[in-house]
């Protein structure tokens, strides 16, 4: 079935060869080709049906410039309606440009998660791991080979897409940008799918749902940003505005370049992480050393959007901080999960930290020279709490000067100083909440239960989501409360919502901060106690038992 040329091309990567050979079976190819042609047929049929006839009075596809698409019928010399074929083809191009990347992304992500979860479940991945192939080779083979069937299905639709672009008079640069962006998005989301699978995620449907939501959200933002909401006459490519005062969205090349750089940076770190996890499934997904750089990349990328012309003429500065806080909450939830080591790793670290010498586990040289602090910041196996605290410090360091620069802002009667106080309080509160969540996660992942993963995800997830939901259900609007009700909000992950909107009394903020600090101290003390116990030698445990 496979052409000889393809066979030769796959000689360099055995994994790619295996995937192609396993997937490109006659039945699959016929089914894929059939489905792709059927989908194209349906699209063509739909566009054929919306073509106006000689009896139609108004149509989008008559010649004319009606902004709402109700152009009047114009007849040619022979009495046939004059159709705006360019628009008709252009619309078809739009539909295909939406559908093709979506099909590639969703099917690919679904298949990758499904395939890797299956390999992990059966135990076959271990054999591949033991072979002399590099993890890069195997993972490239998986990333290119597993989604080969949807790729072929999409490739079959490329001629129609191209024809629609030519007939629709779409500039070549725009057509090309769709393909380039699809490639970039596939690289990023496919690697993210492998990351999710190595994270222990076996639900491929969940991956497909997430990718669908992301895709739909992107189009919502894209369309929203190009409506008349913002006072700009320029078209925003990809819905991107300014970034560090540079107009990205005004030029197609800049917008595509910006998106590609972001995809590239994201893919790079995900790639590092999946390679690391493939080589040793007992390691955390992200090393402490890398986590600092990854968080810095993310924060700088996000922070850039804050710097734009006339930032606070139409909105409060705290709105930007609020949006960034939501993204940070999601970001650090993922980082906590990716950085926190499990029970066995911690036991080994606590018990043998001082005995392992420059050796196989690469715990560092001359262990006795190392301080505990150094271990907690850099070591692969140590508890993650200090590393997460350092990660949390990155947005604090970045945002604080920016918050202090609000002094001159005056929005709807609220002074800059008030905004500054609200901003600092909300930043501090979110940081404290995330630290408590990190300490709790570490404690939960130290449990003896084999299902500690699920316990940790459910408990910490519930801690983030349930209280705000409950409070939101109690009253219809998050911001307008009396101080006594609002205090409950300050203990949730979304404390920044009421804080940024309305502020709070200093005593309330201090009280909440101290409560968070108390919880954090309690959790870290408990963890320290458990690690000390775990670090005791068996001999000590035995003699202690005898004494008792």
């Amino acid at each position: 079935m496979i052409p000889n040329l393809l066979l030769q091309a796959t000689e360099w990567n055995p994994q790619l060869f295996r995937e192609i050979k396993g997937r490109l079976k006659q039945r699959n190819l016929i089914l894929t080709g059939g489905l792709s042609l059927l989908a194209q047929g349906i699209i063509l049929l739909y566009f054929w049906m919306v073509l106006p006839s000689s009896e139609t009075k108004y149509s989008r596809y008559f010649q004319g410039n009606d902004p709402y698409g109700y152009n009047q019928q114009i007849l040619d010399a022979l009495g046939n309606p004059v159709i705006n074929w360019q628009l008709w083809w252009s619309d078809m191009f739009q539909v295909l440009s939406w559908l093709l990347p979506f099909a590639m992304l969703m099917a690919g992500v679904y298949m990758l998660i499904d395939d890797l979860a299956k390999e992990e479940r059966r135990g076959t991945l271990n054999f591949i791991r033991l072979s002399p192939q590099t993890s890069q080779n195997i993972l490239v083979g998986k990333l290119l080979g597993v989604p080969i069937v949807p790729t072929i299905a999409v490739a079959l639709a490329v001629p129609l897409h191209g024809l629609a672009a030519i007939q629709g008079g779409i500039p070549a640069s725009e057509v090309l940008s769709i393909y380039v962006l699809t490639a970039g998005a596939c690289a990023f989301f496919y690697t993210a799918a492998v990351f999710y699978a190595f994270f222990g995620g076996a639900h491929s449907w969940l991956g497909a749902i997430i990718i669908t939501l992301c895709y739909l959200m992107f189009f919502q933002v894209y369309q929203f940003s190009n409506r008349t909401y913002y006072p700009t006459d320029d078209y925003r490519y990809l819905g991107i505005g300014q970034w560090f005062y540079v107009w990205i969205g005004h030029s197609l090349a800049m917008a595509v370049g910006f998106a590609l750089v972001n995809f590239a940076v994201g893919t790079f770190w995900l790639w590092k992480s999946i390679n690391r996890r493939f080589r040793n499934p007992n390691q955390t997904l992200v090393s402490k050393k890398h986590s600092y750089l990854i968080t810095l990349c993310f924060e700088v990328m996000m922070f850039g959007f804050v710097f734009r012309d006339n930032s606070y003429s139409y909105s409060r500065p705290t709105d930007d901080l609020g949006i960034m806080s939501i993204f940070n909450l999601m970001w650090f939830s993922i980082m906590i999960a990716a950085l926190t080591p499990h029970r066995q790793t911690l036991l080994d670290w606590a018990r043998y930290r001082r005995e392992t010498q420059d050796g196989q586990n690469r715990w560092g040289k001359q262990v006795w020279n190392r301080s505990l602090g150094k271990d907690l910041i850099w070591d692969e196996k140590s508890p993650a709490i200090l590393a997460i605290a350092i990660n949390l410090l990155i947005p604090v360091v970045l945002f604080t000067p920016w918050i202090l620069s609000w002094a001159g802002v005056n929005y709807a009667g609220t002074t800059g100083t008030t905004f500054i106080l609200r901003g600092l309080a909300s930043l501090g509160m979110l940081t404290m909440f995330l630290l408590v969540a990190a300490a709790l996660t570490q404690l939960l992942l130290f449990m003896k239960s084999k299902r500690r993963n699920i316990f940790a995800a459910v408990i910490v997830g519930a801690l983030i989501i349930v209280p705000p939901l409950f409070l939101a259900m109690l009253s219809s609007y998050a911001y307008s409360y009396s101080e006594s009700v609002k205090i409950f909000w300050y203990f949730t992950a979304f404390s920044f919502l009421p804080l940024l909107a309305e502020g709070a009394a200093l005593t309330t903020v201090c009280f909440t901060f101290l409560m968070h600090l108390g919880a954090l101290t309690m959790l870290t003390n408990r963890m320290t106690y458990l690690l000390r116990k775990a670090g005791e030698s068996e001999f000590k445990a035995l003699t202690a038992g005898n004494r008792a």
Partner: protein
Amino acid sequence: MPKELAISTRGLTKQFDRQIAVHDIDLHVEAGEVYGLIGPNGAGKTTLIRMLATSEEPTLGEIYINGERLLRDQSNPSLKRQIGYLPDDYPLYDDLTVWDYLDYFARLYQLREPRRSQRMREVLELVQLSHKRHSQIATLSRGMKQRLSLARTIIHEPLVLLLDEPVSGLDPIARVQFREIIKVLQEAGMTVLISSHVLSDLEELCTSVGVMELGYLVESASLDSLFRRLSRQQIVLSTLGDLEALKSELKNCPHVEGMEVLTGTPKVRVHFSGTSEDSAELLRSLIYAGIPLTEFQPTQENLETIFLKLGHQQAS
């Protein structure tokens, strides 16, 4: 001059939670040996083998394969090529054919054509699956799957073969076939480390054995020295005449350390400490004494008896 060590470990330790599965093991297996690992369930055999295969990371200790340090990373692809590992559950890809499966692993281990096809034919012939080369793996019997897994394990001609319970669940014929294959591999110069509960198989295959218990390697010796040290020689005799006459005649021999009558038969089992010449002398003396012997069979205690005699009582 001592032979080169194919496998050597120093202070190899693996701890799961608070339980030490493998405790400070210094294992030495010489090149070309077939080393049998025996011990009750939970003694740490599988964990030890998994660490040797880099499938598990040691908590402490070092592993050397043919004198080279084995690490669980990408720093030593050449060393990985020297190891073949067959776990006890041997997972396979049911959607592939036998040939495609082997082809996949031959490529993973960087075998190039024409050597690749030639090697695949060789191993299929060795494991007697040539006639099944185009069959889907899902349609194979358990024994065939086991043999295919072994074929996958040896496709790249490893120098060290690690086999974890390779005959468990196989019928007697499949076990015999498997044993024969291992013998061929040993003759080809591979060093084999094999764990099994079927001690009769190990007795036939192994040159050395190690006994594991509660994570410790409590015994590690060549099979010959183990037999010399722990296996008593026995002679089973049967007579047509009076058993008492035979017994009194046997008591005259200084090498007879004890005897027991096998219940329900005119047979006596003698524990004998002499050499082969001494046993020939005993036979001659019995014939001179006019004992009508119908059987004179010198035997040795088998590995199973020795294992039980070692008194390792860890519950399975």
